[in-house]
């Protein structure tokens, strides 16, 4: 039984990791765009983005998952239907990407704004172009500053993927829970925790390594 459960959970875990990785793939760059927009001098860009961030950070991710999954159908445009599990997964991905882009954008904004203005000015008086100042002077300092909050947020994402359960995405919690229903076993659900722990442990080691790599300067 243990082997059967483990294999089932591994399948679910593969979905979890897929959702996690694809969310990062899209929300890391999208978050950067949002942060640049939210710092823009163009009010038409700045205020709608600030509003979006307020809504997304101010409502539960679980609710956002349901709105995105059921909303289109209620509006008479059931985009997720007819795709089966793929539709559920796609809806979850969209919700996660929007949610995490907003959180990441605030981390980027904090990182960019924490670089002293003197760094830009030093680059300017040395005749560097704006691109050179960003790439050669500012970027690495921003990365160094955002690694700790980013790793925190990314580790949260690992566990947040379990929320996709509410729209029946077959991630690991869903798989673990299925044994409760079919076999009356609760331990497979508890067992899922081991997978999360190992994965987060791996990420912690990775982020620790990156922080160490960047510790040569202050």
């Amino acid at each position, binding site marked *: 039984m243990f082997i059967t459960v483990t294999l089932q959970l591994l399948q679910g875990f593969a979905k979890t990791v897929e959702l996690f990785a694809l969310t990062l793939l899209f929300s890391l760059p999208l978050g950067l765009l949002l942060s640049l927009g939210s710092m823009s001098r163009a009010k038409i860009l700045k205020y709608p983005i600030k509003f979006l961030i307020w809504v997304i950070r101010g409502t539960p991710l679980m609710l956002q998952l349901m709105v995105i999954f059921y909303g289109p159908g209620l509006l008479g445009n059931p985009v997720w239907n007819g795709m089966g599990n793929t539709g559920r997964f796609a809806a979850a991905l969209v919700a996660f990407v929007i949610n995490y882009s907003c959180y990441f954008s605030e981390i980027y904004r904090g990182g960019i704004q924490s670089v002293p203005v003197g760094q830009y000015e030093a680059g*300017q*008086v040395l005749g560097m172009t704006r691109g050179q100042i960003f790439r050669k002077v500012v970027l690495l300092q921003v990365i160094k500053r955002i690694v700790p909050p980013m790793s925190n947020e990314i580790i949260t994402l690992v566990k947040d993927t379990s929320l996709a359960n509410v729209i029946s995405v077959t991630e690991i919690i869903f798989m673990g829970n299925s044994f409760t229903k079919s076999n009356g076993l609760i331990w497979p659900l508890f067992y899922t925790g081991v997978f999360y722990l190992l994965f987060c442990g791996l990420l912690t080691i990775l982020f620790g390594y990156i922080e160490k790599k960047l510790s040569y300067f202050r």
Partner: protein
Amino acid sequence: MALLEVSHIEKNFENTKVLKDISFQMEEGQAVSIIGSSGSGKTTLLRCLNFLEVPDGGTITVRGEKLFDASEKAQESEEELRKKRLHFGLVFQNFNLFPQYTALENVTLAPKLALEKPDSESLGRIEAHGRELLRKMGLENRENNYPHQLSGGQQQRVAIARALALQPDILCFDEPTSALDPMLTGEVLKVIRSLAEQHTTMIIVTHEMGFARDVSDQVIFMDKGVIAEQGTPEEIFTKPKEEKTRQFLSGYTNPN
């Protein structure tokens, strides 16, 4: 012909007039000190010369070439502005070294980025020049140290080498020792003094009166956004004409 000619520079922040009709000239090889109390506009003037602030009026001319003219509000390309900036170098009060680069890399970064084709020969030349500058600053053993591994005085000397690496016509210092304790102040002033002895053209905003008196060819006293008095160190420090100058200087203990 004067190397630098600043005429009728004005600068407002919101409704505050920070600079009102500033005009002065300086010759090649001169050291000009700008003194005055905080808020008199000294730093703003330096920032205008380095195009970190855009003046609201006046002109800035270097070697007869008009770099800035407030009456021509034409949009300049970033490229043109960058070229104009290179006439001036600026050493900041709080150094502003790039923390992720070593002392030598701080000095060589901008010249390397400015190369049109970075072949190994030009890169080598820049490195050698950078080492030479650090040596002149008394930092030959500190090339590979990062800024946080250096004292404030050492950091400021790296910053001076960094500004010199681009061979500006005029090197500006914005209160270069204000962030340093007296001992570290001495080592930075020594370096600036030796630059003056080599006839580096410099504008120095400073609160070190004894130093200003020793190294300058010309002293400008600023008060409330105007040049209140201007002259040789002798004229300003021993027989100031203006009451304001006298008052300001009496706030400092006599360096003698």
